[in-house]
């Protein structure tokens, strides 16, 4: 099967540089600052008592709020995972890399993060994991304060 190559296509390359300030809001700011101190802080819904990591202003399940800050450990369980073989726009992580939904112990929802320290063929759903924190000089109010999660013995 042949295909027309570039016929009628027009494209322009332009470099655009934009300065911006990201303000995540009170709830997420508190969560991110805690990550910068090697702490995970979830939010407990005052209505249904579900614990969200990251916390929300209001509960996506029952609508109640505001959530009460609650400390959560840095250990949890792999709920699902994938080994990604394509570059992901905006991500500095080079493929292949393992990406997982992790539910921290004491939390009721998952969030996605990187998996490391394990051959990809050994990853299983249900595996217990713990966070590997960035060294002191790289800690920041950011998800990147957690480098990745690694399996821990059951």
């Amino acid at each position: 099967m042949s295909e027309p190559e570039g016929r009628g296509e027009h494209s322009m390359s332009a470099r655009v540089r934009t300065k911006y300030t990201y303000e995540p809001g009170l709830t997420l700011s508190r969560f991110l600052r805690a990550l910068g101190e090697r702490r995970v802080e979830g939010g407990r819904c005052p209505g249904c008592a579900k614990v969200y990591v990251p916390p929300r202003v209001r509960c996506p399940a029952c609508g109640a709020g505001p959530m009460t800050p609650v400390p959560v450990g840095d250990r949890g369980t792999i709920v699902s995972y994938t080994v990604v073989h394509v570059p992901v726009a905006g991500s500095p992580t080079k493929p292949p890399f393992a990406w997982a939904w992790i539910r921290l112990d004491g939390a009721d929802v998952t969030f996605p993060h990187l998996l490391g320290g394990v051959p990809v063929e050994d990853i299983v759903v249900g595996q217990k994991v713990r966070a590997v924190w960035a060294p002191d000089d790289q800690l920041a109010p950011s998800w990147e304060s957690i480098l990745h999660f690694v399996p821990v013995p059951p």
Partner: protein
Amino acid sequence: MAQKFEDDVVIAGIGQSAVGRRLGRAPLALTLDAITAAVADAGLSLDDIGGLASYPGGGTSVGPGFAGPSLADVYDALGLDVDFMMGSFEGPAQLGPVISGSLAISAGLTRHVVVFRTVTEGSARHAARGRQGGAGGESRETGRRAGGVEGPAVLSYALLARRHFHEYGTSRDQLAQIALTARKHAGLNPHAVFREPLTLDDYLSARMIADPLCLYDCDVHCDGSTAVVLSHAGYAADAPGPVVRLEAVGAAPPPRSQHPQHADLLPGRRAARQMWGRTDLRPGDVDVAGLYDGFSILTMFWLEALGFCGVGESGAFVAGGDRISLGGQLPVNTNGGQLSGGRLHGLGFLHEMCLQLRGQAGPRQAESARVAVVAVGALPYVGCLLLRADQ
């Protein structure tokens, strides 16, 4: 079943532009081809068209080549004079304009509404890849997603697919049947993008994108436009050809679709429940189906949500492929779907199901196709339609 607005509406015409990986034609030009074909097919002239509806509508940009022309541009180009117009990204996915247009007809705003969906993702993503200096020189198929322009959608669906595998024991051999059946059907569709035979070995040895989803689990970007003409049922007797009856719609979104934090393996369940609640027909009455396959796993989710099999049983349902192939119990995506036919994005399924119900699907005609379902979308936007052949 009580009187319902669906009874007031028929699909009187369908039309499609050329379809291909990279046609090098403007979105508006493709759109006008599709619309003029659909209007002629309905036996109408542009002067008869009283409404225009589309997904996603002007000003919406999800990615290069996604949006198509704005309704205003189409309106101007065709010199239309309409009483109803809408374009919306948020709603029952790409079937939103079909459902809204039908409601407008039933409510008496207008008698004939044109619905279109246009994509030029094939051309636009190719151009974007060149700009980003991504991997080049790969084969036509393997190169299509290189270059880092894909975004994170495939990651989310890979995580959902893995979860389905884990909870229900679904296997890659089973998931493969969605892609293999689509390719088999595409071989019977001269307009399909990929028509070469595909084997299970090809599938299992294909490049992994985000496991368990490989290259063949991801739909193929293309250029093309699809249009349908919705008409008041009173027009059916005057239409030159067979019309397609609208039996029931499902427009309800998934509940609290906090996509990244909850693994929802049945995003279409509320839309499906609504649709079955508006008809006396049952899943066993459906002869042929067009089920969204932006990623193959989504077709599995729809099979379960629509009740063609139990929750978690889609792997067993599609195993071996015979049941969802032409000649089987429920032929699925008879045009090759978006996996092999090309990502015409939702309305391609509707076009194909209309051809089937009109008995005009040629070598890929499903036997005695009287009832069809079209279901599109994923989290958080879904929609479905139940269609009937005319008497």
